[in-house]
């Protein structure tokens, strides 16, 4: 592996629920918009199939309503993550935020 091209970065993982809302829109959409606004390198939203979290509600699809777990993954430099973090914390009423140190390689041929 060409290790010299891998740069130290941070991986931010936000665990929320699909039904969480922020200022009238889905929380994960609002987070993505905020990331773009703050010029964060990239973000990906994943929807889980099933799960449970700190509120001990089981997130499972129902016939009529569903509230599935959502994970937003963001990778950027430590400075940019530091800049983003307080904003995100203000938007999330409940949920989980995890940060891991990573080595990142951006490929663009």
């Amino acid at each position, binding site marked *: *592996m060409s290790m010299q091209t891998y740069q130290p970065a941070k*991986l931010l993982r936000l665990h929320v629920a699909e039904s969480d809302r922020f200022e009238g829109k889905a929380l994960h959409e609002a987070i993505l918009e905020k990331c773009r606004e703050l010029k964060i390198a*990239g973000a990906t939203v994943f*929807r889980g199939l099933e799960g449970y979290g700190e509120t001990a509600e089981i997130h499972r699809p129902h016939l009529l309503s569903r509230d599935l777990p959502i994970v937003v993954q963001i*990778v950027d430099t430590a400075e940019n993550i530091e800049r983003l973090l307080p904003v995100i914390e203000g938007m999330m009423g409940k949920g989980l935020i995890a940060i891991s140190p990573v080595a990142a390689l951006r*490929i663009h041929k």
Partner: protein
Amino acid sequence: MLSKGVARKVTIYLNEDTQHHLSPLYESILTYLIHKGVAGATATRAFAGFGAHNVLHTPKMEALAEHLPIRVEFIDTAEKVEEVLPTLYDMVTDGLIEVQDTHIVKAAMKEKRQSESKPPRTREAAKAKLMQIFFGEADRWRDEPLYDAILKQLRMMEIAGATVYRGIDGYGAKGHSHKKSFFHISRDLPVMISVIESEEKLNQAASAVERMLEDGLIVISDVEVVRLVHANLPTS
């Protein structure tokens, strides 16, 4: 059982009716190879052919159909081939022996069903690396989806495991949004593949993925693996 890598391939060309101690020579050779613990051997009867005697053996002529060529092939390590070659040299009184260097790409064997009782559940903790690869669902590699191609490549490299996730929304350095839209038939949702392996093997995997990825992001971090060995309870 052979392993991947360098090996030797031996091909022996015989006549079907060449005898060795009252049995066909190819049978004697196969018996000898089994006895010596050679990994495997195949005898094939040719459809037609000719050898040093310059007589064409073909099923079209009934009289010559009895003397069809037989080819015995086996692949093993260089040491094993060295070991059996002198005896084969002696046995083949009429025919040709050829040896070539070869490369084993895959040597797979169906797992034998284990009837022995399994050891109790154990936890194995080890340091490992987690690699996450981010790209688009529409990305392709030589006429197939990139995520399929990467998975195949990782399987061939005997990487322990990989999982493909499809995101529901996102954006990358290109700045364009990956979102499923009601109005857009084509979709390019974000895809992420996660791989957990030892540092050494993960580095190999990363290099392979780096070559395949046109536009994307590779992220590597340290993880602690807690592996449940024999997660199912042992049957008494």
